[in-house]
């Protein structure tokens, strides 16, 4: 199968998955709890439709990169939304988490600036400049998603099924996208088609992750392994005696 038609087929499959995801979000009234994520998905749907309609035209370049820029900022807003949702019930942790979050943002922006500076030397066309800028923003996006996973793990927070799925899908997509964009600026434009295939695969994979986590109900925490009351009381008594001796 020629690469061009594979890219096209992946696009069409992605479009179908996005329509399905949009339907699931509407059916579950997800905009009430995740307004930014819903906006992000609907914007992606619009982006795919717009890109498909102007494919192989001169306007495609501008449509693609303008939508890409808006999509990245919406992605960052989704990260903020998940962060707020995770830490909302924990006021004791929120202050510390916000402080660490700000430090992480500064560190990531510095890394992104470094990456942009290093690659700006070879950026001689508009396409390269846009790619370098995308690279920088993707670093911040992926870094913040990693921060979310690391901080929630460190604080021992429980992720709700939907939030975990949203972050996982967004993170997977951002990681592949970052590798893609970073390598693309170093390789020839001919490699672009291969990267487009990888990009489409990863985006469709993220769509499947979102669909999976939204459609399947959360597994309840098993309480079957909790010890019997009498046994617990014995342990507790023994420990208390030892503490108070």
């Amino acid at each position, binding site marked *: 199968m020629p690469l061009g038609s594979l890219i096209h087929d992946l696009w069409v499959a992605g479009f179908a998955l996005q329509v399905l995801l949009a339907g699931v979000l509407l059916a579950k009234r997800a905009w009430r709890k995740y307004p930014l994520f819903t906006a992000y998905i609907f914007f992606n749907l619009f982006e795919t439709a717009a890109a498909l309609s102007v494919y192989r035209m001169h306007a495609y370049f501008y449509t693609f990169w303008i939508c890409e820029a808006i999509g990245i900022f919406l992605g960052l807003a989704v990260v903020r939304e998940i962060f707020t949702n995770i830490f909302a019930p924990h*006021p*004791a942790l929120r202050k510390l988490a916000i402080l660490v979050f700000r430090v992480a943002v500064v560190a990531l922006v510095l890394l992104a600036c470094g990456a942009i500076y290093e690659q700006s030397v070879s950026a001689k066309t508009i396409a390269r400049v846009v790619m370098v800028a995308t690279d920088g923003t993707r670093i911040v996006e*992926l870094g913040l998603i990693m921060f979310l996973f690391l901080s929630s793990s460190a604080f021992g*927070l*429980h992720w709700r099924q939907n939030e*975990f799925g949203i972050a996982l899908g967004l993170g997977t997509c951002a*990681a592949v996208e970052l590798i893609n964009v*970073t390598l693309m600026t170093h390789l020839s434009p001919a490699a672009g088609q291969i990267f487009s295939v990888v990009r489409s695969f990863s985006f469709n994979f993220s769509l499947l992750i979102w669909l999976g986590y939204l459609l399947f109900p959360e597994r309840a925490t098993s309480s079957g392994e909790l010890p019997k009351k009498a046994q617990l009381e014995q342990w*507790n008594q023994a*420990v208390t005696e030892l503490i108070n001796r």
Partner: protein
Amino acid sequence: MITVIVIALALCAVVLFYMAVRNRRKQAVQSLRPVDLAAFHTLLDRDDELFIKEKLPRSKFVRLKRHRIRVTVRYVARIASNASTVLHESENARLSPTPEVASTAEQVMELAAQIRVQCMLAIFKLSLEYAMPSLQLTPAMLVPTYQTLRENVRRLGDLQTQNAIPLANAI
């Protein structure tokens, strides 16, 4: 150089996501594990450590201290894991229509969150002590806080009459 860092960051992210999915599956069957606080207290006892330091040659002391630190870390990890389970289990109680249950659940959650932060600090300090055994940075605050958490969880269990197995007994 920065390109290498960026690619490494992306690959680390993929590994992190894989681990997060795996840990989430484990968490679904996670249960509370009791903590022997007295044994934990003994491990944190500085007098005991000083006694061993005086009696043993330096190389043996270092080996023994590192062993004690490894055991202490396991205790801290267990306390952290229990605090995390308490955080999760108390979330539903926080939304209870009974104001007293909701308020106690909030107190429990706040305390559990504090313990999580203290555990992070404790593990950081213990790591430093492991690297430099002559250091003395024992996280002494952890025991009383954990004790308070246990009392608050018991109060929450008493308020929730439908609770067949009080959570406090398990921790």
